């Protein structure tokens, strides 16, 4: 880079490029936004390492136990935005013991110490307490963005501290958290002089909020772009809120149901008509389709529609979605059924991401007519479709092969056939051929979840073909150790592997121990592992943390258990921080 300069300059000229001062490199690296690029640059030589780490502004810690908070803060002293993730993904489904860990407090404390200029903090699947929120409010004078996703441990008291203390707050984004309601009027604590809010998402809050306070807040925050309400806001109040914030880009309506009144309908229709910038819509809509036409004026502009909590079905739903010709993201319940997806296929040709959730996951009968046909139709007609999450009750190899042929551009393919071990419902064969077709055709696949009746054969395909695969989820599949061996000895880019209820044992784990250090984490539950193998793994691989969890009723000190003892849950992750010290009694580090 500097060479052209030194050639053109006179004799006593610029230093050779490799001796340029750090500030030059820091400036250069500021043009590398991607963490992986920065990481690669940092590996080139010591001066680049120094320059890169000192100028890093965004830090993403995908596993809060991979490094200690103090190490992170020390190594990257200039961080302004940090994201930390905690519990393993399967915690979402209740498989991880409740007090497993992932406390945010040590990270907040370290950040308060070493990153006084911190502006953004994001926690996912972590335990965030009110004390954490109070500390955040008190420690960072220019704090702007707080994002909490699937967290727990805090209450509206903590939110009150944020509202009262963060003068420059731009985003308060609470997604799917468990928030204890202390009947605190936290919204009132945003001062009257506070106008900087751009994003306000409190959709997961269960309690009431003061509507008048909310209206005043919305009125004075002229830059508000995202507003996601909770269920306590009635429809007529929604209309008046929208009139105060017509510049809104993303709206979460909260509960959207009321008895039909033509006045209210007219109010809503007028309010929506004023929202010319509205692009993303979500909400927990109950089955009152009478109000759907009030939205018609915004349908054309919508790029994102999340109806995954909406229990609307039938022709009104389809009429509504069919008008959304520019949709890129659609999340729905299976109440849309195959014919609804056929309508989506013909109307929404720009669709990039589709998620179909089960309305009644525990009903064995499955009264909803959503089958493989819906997914086939959408994949055939939506050329930009690249991300799918699909819950259904039946599937065939032929359908999957067709889908694979239609859409080789999938990057994320997650299919969940609700009943474990379900075969191809026509041929009664395992679904190996279908899932193999997906992985062979979609060269760019980075996330994959398999289900249904599967033998080791599908894993052979995955291991051999899924070169870009980073995250793989397996449940009730495979029939021997070879299945796991295929995965661990293949899948060059694998970062996260989560397995439950598969007949995989010790051998493939130990044979591929070195692979585990190239991955972020491995979760195995209800497989055929023994404590002896875990001990061996821990001995062999000191930079891995090997955690075993058993039914808490039977928790006893590891030393007293023999090598043959079965291991119910295993979580292995690479770490430079050594074994953690905050394990509850049901978790033991081998």
């Amino acid at each position, binding site marked *: 880079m500097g060479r052209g300069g030194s050639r053109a300059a006179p004799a006593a000229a610029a230093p050779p490029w490799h001796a340029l001062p750090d500030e030059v490199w820091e400036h250069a690296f500021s043009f590398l936004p991607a963490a992986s690029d920065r990481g690669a640059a940092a590996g080139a030589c010591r001066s680049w390492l120094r320059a890169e780490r000192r100028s890093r502004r965004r830090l993403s810690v995908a596993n809060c136990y991979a490094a200690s908070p103090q190490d992170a803060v020390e190594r990257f002293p200039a961080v302004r935005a940090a994201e930390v993730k905690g519990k393993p993904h399967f915690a979402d489904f209740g498989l991880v013991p409740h007090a497993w860990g992932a406390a945010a407090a040590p990270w907040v404390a370290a950040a308060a110490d070493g990153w006084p200029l911190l502006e953004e903090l994001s926690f996912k699947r972590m335990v965030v307490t009110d004390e954490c929120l109070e500390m955040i409010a008190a420690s960072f004078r220019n704090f702007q963005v707080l994002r909490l996703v699937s967290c727990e441990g805090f209450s509206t008291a903590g939110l009150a501290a944020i509202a009262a203390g963060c003068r420059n707050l731009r985003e308060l984004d609470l997604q799917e958290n468990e928030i204890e309601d202390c009947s605190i009027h936290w919204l009132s604590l945003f001062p009257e002089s506070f106008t900087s809010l751009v994003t306000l998402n409190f959709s997961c809050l269960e309690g009431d909020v003061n509507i008048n306070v909310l209206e005043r807040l919305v009125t004075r925050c002229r830059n508000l772009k995202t507003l996601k309400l909770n269920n306590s806001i009635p429809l007529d109040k929604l209309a008046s809120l929208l009139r105060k914030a017509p510049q809104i880009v993303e709206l979460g309506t909260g509960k959207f149901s009321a008895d039909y009144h033509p006045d209210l309908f007219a109010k809503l229709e007028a309010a929506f008509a004023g929202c010319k910038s509205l692009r993303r819509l979500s909400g927990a809509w109950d089955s009152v389709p009478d109000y759907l036409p009030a939205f018609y004026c915004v349908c054309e502009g919508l790029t994102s529609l999340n109806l995954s909590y909406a229990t609307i079905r039938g022709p009104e739903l389809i009429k509504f979605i069919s008008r959304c010709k520019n949709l890129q993201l659609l999340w729905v319940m299976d109440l849309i059924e195959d014919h609804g997806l056929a309508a989506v296929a013909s109307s929404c040709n720009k669709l990039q991401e589709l998620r179909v959730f089960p309305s009644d996951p525990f009903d064995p009968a499955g009264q909803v007519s959503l089958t493989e046909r819906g997914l086939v139709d959408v994949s055939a007609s939506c050329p930009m479709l690249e991300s799918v999450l699909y819950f259904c009750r039946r599937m065939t190899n032929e359908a999957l092969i067709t889908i694979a042929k239609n859409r080789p551009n999938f990057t994320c393919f997650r299919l969940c056939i609700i009943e474990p071990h379900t075969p191809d419902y026509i041929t009664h064969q395992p679904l190996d051929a279908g899932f193999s077709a997906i992985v062979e055709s979609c060269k760019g696949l980075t996330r994959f979840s398999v289900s249904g009746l599967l033998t080791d054969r599908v894993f052979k395909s995955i291991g051999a073909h899924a070169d870009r695969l980073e995250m793989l989820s397996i449940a009730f599949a495979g029939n021997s150790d*070879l299945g796991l061996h295929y995965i661990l000895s293949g899948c060059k880019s694998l970062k996260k592997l989560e397995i439950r209820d598969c007949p995989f044992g010790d051998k493939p784990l130990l044979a591929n121990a070195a692979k585990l250090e190239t991955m972020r984490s491995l979760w195995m539950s209800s497989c055929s592992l023994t404590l002896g193998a875990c001990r061996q793994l821990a001995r062999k691989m000191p930079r891995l943390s090997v955690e075993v969890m058993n039914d808490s009723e039977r928790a006893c000190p590891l030393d007293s258990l023999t090598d*043959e003892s079965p291991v119910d849950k295993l979580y292995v992750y690479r770490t430079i921080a050594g074994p953690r010290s905050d394990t509850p009694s049901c978790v033991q580090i081998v």
Partner: protein
Amino acid sequence: MAGLGFEETELRLGLPGGNDAEEATRSSGKRAFEETIDLKLKLEQPACPTENEEDEEAAAADVIPAAANSLSSPAASVATGGGNMKRSPSQSSVVTAELPDPEKPRAPKYVLLHLLCMPLLHRVMLKHAVGWPPVRSFRKNIQSSQKGAGAGAAALVKVSMDGAPYLRKVDLRMYGSYHDLSKALEKMFSSFTIAGSCGSQGMKGMNETKLADLLSGSEYVPTYEDKDGDWMLVGDVPWEMFVESCKRLRLMKGSEAVGLGHSEGDGEMQEQMLRNAYLHASGISCKDTALLFYVS
């Protein structure tokens, strides 16, 4: 190769549940369990036997390389299992399919009620594995509250335990009896036994057995708030009635529950103690500092 039990790991492309030798080694205690769960797992063999043979030949070439420090104990290689589905003995991934212990109920009338509850227990027995299908708890909660009250709907109630740092939620319809519920609560709150990240003063020095003692003994009293907003002692009414009327559970510390006692089958509560319970209940889970922020 001897002693490695290598042959145990050769690929056998049978479907789960197809190997008799494997079944013989399973402990007989799990029999009843398997009969219910394997109703779903036992599937027909694939249509063409020739397909299997080809695969076995091809598979013979695919073997797992022995690890550098390979397993030498034969017992361990047995545990690795052959080509078949092996149920992890802890069975914790599946909601218990065994009939509840015929534990002595609190009062004779509950024996009769257990019999009446059999259909409900049968439903519990055939429930799906824990965490399957993979629907987030957050979504499950929303959907069940959307469904509202009804025979099939979940009966999710908050459970608080005095001294625990945060609350839990349970679906009362997942259980068939007070005994099942108490076992589940025990399991749930026993994970608060290490101080660590919980930082709750009241729970230091706790362990599982002590907790079990607390729950079943006299130090913690399970109470619940019913539809009318009254705080009641858990166990007085028949289980089904309890599930319908319970809005919230609270494991009250013994010192608060003066006079509640465990009088068998005694449905009466003293007014004094009722009042105490109600007063304390209204202050549940609010921090003292919260009062500083209260704006009316």
